[in-house]
């Protein structure tokens, strides 16, 4: 029972990170009709920035919690600028392009971001510290890892803020209006260009947060986000791209399933099994568990 619970908690831990990244993907998709395949690579780049900042600051001021927090905040600031620039330079010029064309631009972005990360930071693997370094302890046979609870807690707060923004504020209304119909929203006076810009910034910050928090488990290297990225996309597909709550549930589901399959069935084949599960779901429900099928008009 203890090992089951432990796996579920570990699953919720990674699952909430998948959910964060997936939320970023869905946010961008809804607002600017682009599927950002470079989300994972952008998060990896931000992870590298966090790592380098942390190293530099630790050298200068000593390895304390303060330097870690400063590095974390520095990386988020970087992500803000990064998301803004990417939207401005790569996405805006292709606004009127076809869906497939915009998808291909983000695929090109993967190559550019991944290649530049290798060129700037090198292709070595680095160890990153945990957010909470308090060592794990047992309570009645159950291993308690403070870092895991911190991650779950932090993502809950971030999601709460995000949902509050989307549901209750004027800005959220603008986002939802743009997501519903870009042209109509623009005619109604919604500054859709600004909305799209902000959506990219928020999504990049969400990805960066997920990247920095998962870095202790995956280490920092140019391929660190490959697995997380795929899982977050699967989470978005599972939940459906049409709602904001769907990807969160999808992410948690994937995280928990991944851990349980890895523990009880086969650690070697878990990617294959989890992926097979996705295909099954897609065959039964092509728009995801919570997605609505939208009929395209001719």
């Amino acid at each position, binding site marked *: 029972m203890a090992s089951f619970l432990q796996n579920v908690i570990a699953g919720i831990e990674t699952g909430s990170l998948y959910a964060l990244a997936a939320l970023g993907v869905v946010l961008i998709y809804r607002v600017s009709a682009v599927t950002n395949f470079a989300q994972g690579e952008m998060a990896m780049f931000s992870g590298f920035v966090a790592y380098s900042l942390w190293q530099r600051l630790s050298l200068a001021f000593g390895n304390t919690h303060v330097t870690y927090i400063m590095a974390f905040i520095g990386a988020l600031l970087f992500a803000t600028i990064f998301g803004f620039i990417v939207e401005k330079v790569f996405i805006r010029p292709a606004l009127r392009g076809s869906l497939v064309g915009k998808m291909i631009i983000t695929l090109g972005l993967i190559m550019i971001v991944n290649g530049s990360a290798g*060129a700037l930071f090198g292709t070595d693997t680095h160890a990153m510290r945990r957010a909470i370094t308090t060592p794990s302890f047992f309570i009645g046979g159950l291993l308690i890892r403070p870092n895991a609870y911190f991650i779950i807690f932090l993502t809950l707060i971030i999601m709460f803020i995000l949902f509050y923004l989307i549901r209750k504020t004027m800005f959220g209304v603008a986002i939802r209006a743009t997501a519903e119909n870009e042209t109509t929203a623009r005619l109604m006076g919604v500054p859709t260009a600004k909305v799209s810009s902000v959506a990219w910034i928020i999504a990049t910050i969400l990805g960066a947060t997920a990247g920095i928090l998962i870095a202790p488990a995956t280490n920092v290297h140019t391929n660190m986000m490959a697995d997380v990225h795929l899982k977050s996309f699967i989470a978005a597909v599972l939940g459906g791209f049409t709602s904001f709550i769907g990807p969160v549930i999808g992410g948690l589901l994937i995280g928990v399933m991944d851990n349980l399959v890895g523990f009880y069935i086969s650690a070697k084949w878990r990617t*294959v099994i989890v992926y097979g599960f996705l295909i099954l779901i897609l065959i039964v429900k092509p728009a995801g568990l919570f997605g609505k099928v939208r009929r395209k008009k001719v």
Partner: protein
Amino acid sequence: MEDSKGTIRKNNRLISNLLKGKPQQYLVVGIIFLLIPIINLWTGMISFSNMTLLNNVVIFAIAALGFNILLGYAGQVSLGHAAFMGMGAYLSAYLTMQLELPFLLSLLLSGLVPMVIGLLLGLVALRLASLYLAIATLGLGVTFQNIFIEWTALTGGHAGLRRIPYPEILGFEIRQREHFLILSIVILVGLAIFSYNFLHSKTGRALIAMRDSEHAAQAMGISLFKYKLYAFALSAFYVGIAGSLYAHLYRYVEPSAWGVELSLNLLAMVVIGGLASIGGSIVGAAFIQLLPRVMQDLPLVGGITNINFILTGVALIVVIIFFPTGLIRRFDFLWNKLKAKVGKLNSKEGGTP
């Protein structure tokens, strides 16, 4: 004087007749390119590594050709076609090493088995919108790479398979790069002609109609079921054949070659060369394969790690934003301009027609 002009015109007409049909053009261009390995057998002007590179160009041109049928003609985005290429490579290695089948049979089989898997993928794709399909195929690619690593009995795991036999056709063992290039060019030309005929039949037009609007195509009585399956099956077949050739060229297969990077590169080849264009697939493959070689010799820039990957990405985006029809159409545009000029000159010389 009159006479010589007449013969020139007759000759011109002969040449233009010869080059009128695209299949004939492919054949002629193929024969011209066949001269490279044949001449090199005597002179040895092109080094071994450059010969390997040329082989690579042709092999990836075959893969890109298949991928273009799917992406360019049918409009289906797949991010997992590296899996089919890997499948073809491992299968061919297994068939020739373990079962000791003849090369040509295993080449065919390593096209046909991915084709069957491609059919299954097509069945799933029938239900999915383009975005969901892209993600599902992305997962497919990762999953198959995982299988290549974990199924050690068949694939040799991380270490891969070594000492794959040389291809042997009718008792002739293809050991030299030049001979291999002849083989792959012949296969490429054959497949290009087949694609042309296939895509310029009813099927090709149905695929294009489906790409432009599924609903409109359906209303015209086009069976999405049939044609989506065609596109997936055929593209997987081509890519599998390319994989098999790759395995026999390098005589070594390992799982890291069949990752997302390869799928992205295939997509880049097709987009940069020209969507829905047979010549474009070949130009795109040459672009992606030759870029590293060209960059390597450049001072300053050549030293940057990953510069090829970065530049491919930049090229991909630049092409999509500025020339959405690909490089080949630029060539076609210039070629037609030239032809129009030559035609004008000819008619001036010939007087009244």
